[in-house]
């Protein structure tokens, strides 16, 4: 087991308004979320001495403008003018989960005391994956000439591989979409709060990239979420009950740019990350009370459930049936609605929900008695990270 288990904790959490269009600069969303997270902790902004984020815009063909389409550390420094800042980072390879892990490492190293981590996501005007080029350079020379553009198609080809090699039926995914949307009705911050989804809606919705229909894809939105991370001894003295970080992992699988469609890459990425998290925390999948698994595209949950070890390969679509993923089921899953419910804010919201469930702060969607709370914070293939939070340190 990891000697640093339960020595760092998530304290406060914060959310901005989530909107479909970019009516105000993204920096304003990020600032709103950060302020709320700091206030939720009962801290003053001047207490914050660490900043960490992953500022990437996953859309293609749009300018990255700091404060408008991304919110970098530099932008946050300019807005907050923190008098006691001692440490900051923005990560590149592991999406927002890596930003949380680096903040954890900085706290353990003693170079800062209270770190804010945020993820701000922009919804550009026009087509999200805007691919107007007449040339295909670099890795895209082997993909773009055949119409492979956005990440959805890359995920879709692995999904056909999964469906047909395991003789499975995409209609079973309706359970995931419908159950997560029902969970969303307990999350007033979510984009789809107040909007129901039925199995019939799912089955009759238009295809985007087979096997993905509209409701297999998270909707692009503008918004931000944030957390305060601190050491366990400091977290105990703050307002909210802490969610202790019991262990984490990151994918170790090597992936070649431009190679797409490889189902085994998702599986190897996920299992390598989860193995570290199980070993560090000392838990196994059977110990988990509640799980958040990244669902930017629905099939990512399948790859997660199987590669993390919750069920066998080819079993995930059967595993989620019969109420298992309900709030009172054997493995409550994506209890905040997932990205399919909140809109595309990436995995920090999964981490937030993992922390809230561990600390008993999830309100009307709280899983009763939850202690061991698992998070897979992004698609396992390239940027995969995994976490376990607990309410009771051990």
């Amino acid at each position: 087991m990891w000697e640093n288990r339960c020595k760092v904790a998530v304290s406060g959490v914060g959310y901005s308004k989530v909107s479909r269009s970019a009516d105000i600069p993204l920096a304003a969303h990020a600032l709103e979320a950060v302020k709320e997270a700091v206030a939720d902790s009962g801290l003053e902004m001047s207490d914050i001495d660490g900043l960490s984020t992953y500022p990437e815009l996953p859309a293609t063909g749009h300018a990255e403008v700091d404060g408008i389409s991304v919110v970098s550390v530099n932008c946050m420094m300019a807005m907050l003018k923190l008098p006691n800042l001692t440490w900051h980072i923005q990560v590149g390879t592991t999406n927002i989960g890596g930003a949380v892990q680096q903040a954890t490492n900085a706290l353990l190293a003693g170079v800062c005391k209270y770190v804010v981590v945020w993820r701000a996501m922009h919804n550009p005007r026009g087509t999200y994956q805007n691919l107007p080029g007449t040339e295909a350079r670099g890795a895209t020379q082997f993909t773009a000439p055949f119409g492979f553009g956005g990440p959805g198609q890359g995920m879709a080809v692995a999904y056909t591989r999964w469906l047909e090699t395991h003789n499975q039926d995409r209609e079973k995914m309706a359970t995931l979409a419908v159950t997560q949307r029902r969970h969303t009705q307990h999350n007033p911050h979510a984009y789809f709060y107040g909007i129901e989804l039925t199995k019939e809606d799912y089955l009759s919705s238009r295809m985007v990239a087979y096997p993905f229909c509209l409701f297999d894809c998270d909707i692009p939105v503008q918004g931000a979420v944030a957390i305060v991370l601190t050491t366990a001894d400091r977290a105990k003295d703050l307002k909210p009950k802490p969610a202790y970080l019991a262990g984490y992992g990151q994918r170790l699988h090597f992936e070649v740019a431009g190679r797409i469609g490889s189902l085994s890459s998702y599986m190897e990425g996920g299992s390598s990350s989860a193995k570290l998290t199980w070993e560090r925390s000392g838990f196994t999948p059977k110990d988990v009370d509640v799980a958040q698994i990244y669902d930017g595209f629905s099939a990512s949950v399948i790859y997660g459930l199987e590669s993390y070890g919750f069920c066998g390969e080819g079993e995930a679509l059967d595993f989620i049936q019969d109420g298992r993923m309900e709030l009172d089921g054997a493995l409550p899953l994506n209890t905040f609605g997932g990205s399919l419910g909140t809109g595309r804010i990436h995995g920090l919201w999964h981490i937030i929900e993992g922390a809230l469930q561990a600390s008993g702060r999830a309100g009307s969607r709280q899983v009763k008695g939850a202690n061991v709370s698992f998070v897979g914070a992004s698609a396992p293939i390239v940027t995969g990270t995994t976490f376990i939070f607990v309410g009771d340190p051990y």
Partner: protein
Amino acid sequence: MSDWSKVTRPIPVPDEWTKPFWDAAKRESLALQRCQSCGHFQHPPYPTCVNCMSIDLKFEAVGGTGTIYAYTIMYHDGDKRFASAVPCASIIVELDDAPGALMAGNLLDAPYTEAKVGRRVEVVFEPLNDDITLPLFRLAAE
């Protein structure tokens, strides 16, 4: 059947790692990068062998038959360059001579519903201009 005639495909720009692939395609032949140390085929090309880390890599001619490893059928017409062809099948092919190397392509001359994991396909070559010829696929005898 998808109408590919009005599609304006982005034109590949070869670089030092990929030029032998496109040179071979222009001759209507397939050549994939192979590690001379361990024999591993890989695609797309990479500066090192992803299996054994050797940098002794050469392009070797391979046959044009294989199976569909995976596929997607594009319905969304957000990419206007391909809008006239949707729905259309974008496929990933594993060649018989290069197991483990996955090539992207399109399925031509067949309804897009014929794209299935495990179907036999064979390469066809489509010149995009004087310099670049694109390998694509059609169904082959089972």
